């Protein structure tokens, strides 16, 4: 990606505007991070509470640059055969069968074991060659000719061992395959890693990345986000609902409502033809915002106070 010229990534302001055109409203810090990631050829590690648009950032970047998005979803037990590459065992097996039949022709005329082996050696290592390689997301991203956006989602879900696997890719944009050698990316991809902070990411990985923390957006920013995503909601409603969500986040909840939930809620309120927040309406639709019964119970008695405070 980095060798190419992207006018969209020329300056922080252009990135901000570009994202906005695709409906992704971001803070200055996020745009700065993308700008630097491109300029310094560094991956970005994005952390933050769930639902603040970490994955969306990578998707929008891909849309904006019209580059393919390659996504690797991490989970416990993910290993290199699912992330990096795998040998095509079926195909290898088929070739052994073919080879078995051809073996007679090949070795025709050879006398003794030593000569036969000698002759076989001349054929090279056909089973472990590029033809039998099944690329997985990481290798695919390295091989994209025009560059790609590589999204490694929820790294914190993977094991520690997997993190070490990423180190080579993240610092040098290359992959070592023992049987073949090193595959270096022609055009290095732009890498986004996301983490929900369920565990600490190792220092080695962090050192290789720009570290971007996306917090819940400020009221103004969130209003802009809602305006861009749900343009039909009226100004008053939008202001009220964003204020309300912000006050909910200050309560002691198991899971605070995310930006995506604010958007969902705005959409549902719109469907119910609401033009301002009323207590009953909020009470009935609270389950769009809060996904745990405990949280709903915590919030219910506070509703009136929250609404009158912020109204």
């Amino acid at each position, binding site marked *: 990606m980095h060798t190419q010229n992207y006018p969209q990534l020329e300056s*922080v302001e252009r990135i901000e505007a570009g994202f906005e055109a695709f409906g992704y409203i971001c803070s*200055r*810090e996020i745009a*700065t*991070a993308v*700008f*630097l990631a491109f*300029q*310094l050829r*560094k991956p*970005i*590690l994005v*952390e933050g509470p769930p639902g603040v648009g970490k994955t969306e950032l990578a998707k929008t970047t891909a849309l904006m640059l019209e580059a393919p998005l390659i996504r690797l979803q991490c989970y416990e037990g993910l290993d290199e055969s699912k992330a990096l590459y795998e040998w095509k*065992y079926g195909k290898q*097996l088929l070739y*052994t*069968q073919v080879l078995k039949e051809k073996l007679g022709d090949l070795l025709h005329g050879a006398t003794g074991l030593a000569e036969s082996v000698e002759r076989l050696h001349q054929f090279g290592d056909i089973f472990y060659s590029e033809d039998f390689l099944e690329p997985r997301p990481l290798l695919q991203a390295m091989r994209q000719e025009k560059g790609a956006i590589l999204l490694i989602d929820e790294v914190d879900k993977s*094991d*520690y061992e997997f993190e070490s696997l990423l180190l080579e890719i993240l610092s040098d944009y290359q992959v070592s395959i023992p049987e073949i050698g090193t595959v270096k990316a022609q055009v290095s991809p732009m890498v986004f890693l996301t983490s929900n*902070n369920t*565990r*600490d990411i190792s*220092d080695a990985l*962090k*050192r290789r990345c*720009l*570290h*971007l*923390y996306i917090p819940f957006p400020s009221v103004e920013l969130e209003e802009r986000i809602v305006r861009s995503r749900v343009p039909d909601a009226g100004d008053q409603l939008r202001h009220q609902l964003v204020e309300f969500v912000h006050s909910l986040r200050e309560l002691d909840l198991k899971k605070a409502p995310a930006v995506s939930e604010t958007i969902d809620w705005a959409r549902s309120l719109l469907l119910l033809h609401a033009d301002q927040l009323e207590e009953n309406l909020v009470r009935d639709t609270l389950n769009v915002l809060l996904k745990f019964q405990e949280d709903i119970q915590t919030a219910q008695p506070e509703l009136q106070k929250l609404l009158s405070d912020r109204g």
Partner: protein
Amino acid sequence: MQDRLVGFIQVLRSHQLRISPAETLDAMGVATTLGYADRDMLRDGLGLVLAKTNRDKAIYRQCFDHYFSHDFDSSPPEQAEDAEEESPNADSLPLDSPGLQPEGNAEPQEAQPSPLDEALAESPALAELANSALLQALRDNDRNTLALAVARAAESVSLSNIRAFTQRGQYTRRMLDALGEEVIRRGVIELEQQDSPALAELQGYRDMLRERVRDTVEREYLLQAQGRNAQRMDEILARTRLNNIELHYQQRVYELVRKMARKLAARYARKRRVYKRGQLDMGRTLRRGIPHDGVMFNTYWRRVNKSRPQVLALCDVSGSVAAYAKFLLIFLYSLADVLPRMRSFAFSSHLGEITDLFRQHPVEKAVEIANWRYGGSTDYGASLEDFSRLALDDVGSNTTVIILGDARNNHGDPRLDLMQQLYQRAKQVIWLNPESRRAWGTGDSEMIRYQSTCHFSAQCNNLEQLERFIDQLLRNTR
């Protein structure tokens, strides 16, 4: 400016941020890419490479604001015509520290000669003062010149060496001397003797200058010394006997304990999933080979999944040992990531399980409740009996039992038979005693006898020993 950046990174390091040389280089790259024109953008940008946890980001922001507070000026300098004072250092940006200006000083002075002008013109004793560039700068409110002069004075007295709170006065004095404040000081004395109307004005300038210098010194102290002092303080706290730590420092010690725990957790978390490769699973290997025409491409091994270790902590919460119990528990529970199967019990006259308390409350609170609920005079015999009833069945070859107590049984029955049982069933029994080894076995202490039924016993009364012990515990249990 690059030097400033390196200096900034030094400051961040003294505030406990771990910044590698590679990250320093990244920071340089960021600064070159973004330029120094937009302060907020630079702050965001450097934050991306220098602070890599949420906690670090808060510290980073604070340091950035302190360190670069006077390097960026949002308003253009008001007067910059003083050519000879123009910055000789092309790198340095307009310096400024707003808000120090007493009201009314910015009024044009030429319009009406002030009493000070008259006094200066009249009195020959003030000739030196009249020629002072410093006073001129103060009177013209020339921020650039002033800030530059202050910065030079700071350099000449090597202000960046400031270490202690008590040095602030001394450094302020030396800075003022370096600035040539003496002239103004003498002028004030002179005017005082003359009882001149210009006195108040000159005093105003003097105070303004002093305030400015004091401010610079203060800021430098905060930057340079605070981090280092905190580090030294932590070292001292780690070696202090835990029950001597005053209430005032407790919060800090909790923080320290968490820090140690984080370090240990990071070291041991890696080895959480240990598999032992067992024998070849012939059946499975054959079965999986069927689709490949019986060729056994993949081999399967009987894996032995090493079960996670269990730790049981028994803490004496009677008055004499409570403080130690508290820290041990806080330490152990801060390690929840690496010791997931942790159960805790509190005892003095009787024993009860307090694991649930830790689930319901934050650690400090839970320790307090346990203390309150189980505190009293100690009876080890009865407590061990309670423990056997509650949890002896769960003690197995994976279990590590940690007992924290002074083994002072008030001359009661020590119930060594129960300890014996525990010793035979558990993987390890560890006794931590806050008393020094010399006191073991004296008076009503049963330590020598209990020691015989433990795999390991140690004296443990400060954080350093505690950390060492827990390090060992983690190494042995997995």
